């Protein structure tokens, strides 16, 4: 009934307007309407734009909240399943999600690499200890996987909180520039959050991820050979390839682990008194839009990501002995890097292994000693 009353009211208003503006009344209505519209947009245009942006951020924030909550749920479920703890780990998980790592001061950058490495080592130890308390029944592989799962959940929590911070700040200050900044980078942030959400499931099940492509190539090369532990969480195998002696290095799997390949390479170089003909590093690298996932490319330099400490160590070692360094990279996007390994990337590891053999043949002589390092998270990849 109310609806019909509204319609009747509007018709009555139209009749009234026709009485006030006889003749071409419709033109008058349009004139007034557009004049009003002009005035509204002059004074409130920016505000209207801001409300539209805020609504857009709100929608993404809702999705981020859902992903964050889902991440927490998965982490908790996995810990309960694997850990078989007698006490409810929910409170400890929530504390874990709030952990912060304070980077060392860089005003005087000399020695910052070692400071950063120390902070990261302490962080890792702390995380592992926490996981052991939360999941007392977990073995070493599961501890690594759980640690990775919790780290992904913590990353999602941080992303959500940062976006929420800017959203609330923007609403409080009504500053278009704060809101615009966050709205402009939101599509990229959402992609990253979706990637972490897939990573979380992969980590909780212990599935190989795209980032482990380098480690998988190394694992394929060292199959059937005797392996020994070298440095922290890394293994090495002496493999004869094309008449050369190759020291193949990778992080120890199948738990989620990147190891310290920089330390391992340094150790092998020193064991051989620096007599290394070349180093070949294989790693997954972020592709540019338009490039195909699983494309393999070659180059020079230390192919390794992360905070930079391991890359620094490798560069220091090769500089000392003037060792040439080659890189073979497998291209993938951020989503593929942290989600379960897709078929194309798995197939690309075969291509990468062939490229490694080609580099060995072209860049070294028979009898040479070389190092091959497969970089990346070795979750779901044995050796």
């Amino acid at each position, binding site marked *: 009934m109310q*609806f019909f009353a*509204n*319609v009747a009211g*509007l018709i009555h208003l139209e009749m009234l307007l026709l009485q006030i503006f006889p003749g071409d009344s*419709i033109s008058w209505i*349009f004139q007034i309407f557009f004049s009003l519209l002009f005035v509204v947009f002059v004074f409130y245009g920016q505000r209207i734009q801001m409300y539209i942006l805020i609504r857009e951020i709100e*929608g993404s924030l*809702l*999705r981020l909240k*859902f*992903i964050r909550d*889902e991440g927490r749920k998965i982490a908790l479920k996995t810990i309960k399943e694997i850990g078989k703890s007698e006490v409810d780990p929910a409170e400890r998980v929530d504390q874990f999600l709030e952990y912060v790592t304070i980077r060392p001061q860089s005003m005087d950058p000399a020695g910052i690499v070692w400071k950063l490495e120390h902070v990261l080592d302490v962080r890792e130890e702390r995380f592992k200890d926490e996981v052991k308390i939360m999941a007392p029944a977990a073995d070493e592989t599961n501890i690594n996987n759980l640690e990775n799962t919790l780290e992904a959940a913590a990353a999602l929590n941080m992303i959500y909180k940062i976006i929420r911070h800017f959203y609330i700040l923007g609403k409080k200050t009504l500053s278009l520039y704060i809101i615009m900044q966050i709205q402009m980078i939101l599509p990229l942030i959402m992609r990253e959050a979706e990637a972490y*959400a*897939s990573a979380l*499931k992969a980590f909780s*099940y*212990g*599935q*190989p991820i795209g980032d482990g492509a380098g480690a*998988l190539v190394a*694992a394929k090369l060292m*199959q059937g050979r005797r392996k020994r532990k070298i440095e922290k969480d890394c293994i090495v195998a002496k493999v004869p390839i094309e008449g050369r002696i190759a020291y193949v290095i990778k992080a120890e*799997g*199948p738990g989620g682990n990147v190891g310290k390949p920089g330390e391992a390479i340094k150790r092998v170089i020193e064991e051989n008194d620096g007599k290394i003909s070349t180093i070949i590093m294989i790693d997954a690298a972020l592709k540019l839009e*338009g490039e195909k996932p699983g494309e393999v490319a070659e180059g020079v330099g230390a192919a390794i990501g992360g905070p930079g400490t391991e890359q620094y160590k490798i560069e220091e070692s090769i500089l000392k002995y003037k060792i040439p360094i080659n890189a073979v990279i497998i291209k993938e996007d951020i989503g593929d890097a942290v*989600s*379960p*390994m*897709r*078929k*194309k*990337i*798995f197939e690309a590891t075969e291509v990468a292994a062939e490229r490694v053999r080609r580099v060995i043949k072209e860049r070294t002589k028979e009898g040479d000693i070389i190092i091959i390092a497969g970089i990346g998270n070795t979750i*779901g*990849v*044995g*050796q």
Partner: protein
Amino acid sequence: MNEETTATARRISSIVMIVIIVVLALSLSALYQAYDMFINEDPTMGYYLLIGFIGLALSTYMLLQTRRRMRRFTLKTPPITTTITCSKCGFKNVRDFERGDFIFKKLDSCSKCEGTMTISAIYREVKEKGKEHKIFG
């Protein structure tokens, strides 16, 4: 292993829905008015037609927006396959991923030749989207 988690976003306020319905009704009546004027050969028909279409477009857009807000959030887990190969006879077995699987894991002996079965591959299949940049490819 193939799971899907869903959640629904918050509901749309009833006032917004009423506004949308009113605008829709008014624009439809304007369109009817325009049709009536067209029959009577009234030259002012164009204004009603314009108002009707603008109202219709606005209300449809608002309705679609609310539907977008109400859609269900999903978090899909793609199917992951594990390939097991016999190192002796090359017999292959493909199955869904199970917790505890990892590449190069040694499993039971082969049912055909008693050789060692090893997990040779774990990956997810991705359906490729047909749309590719042909000009810049």
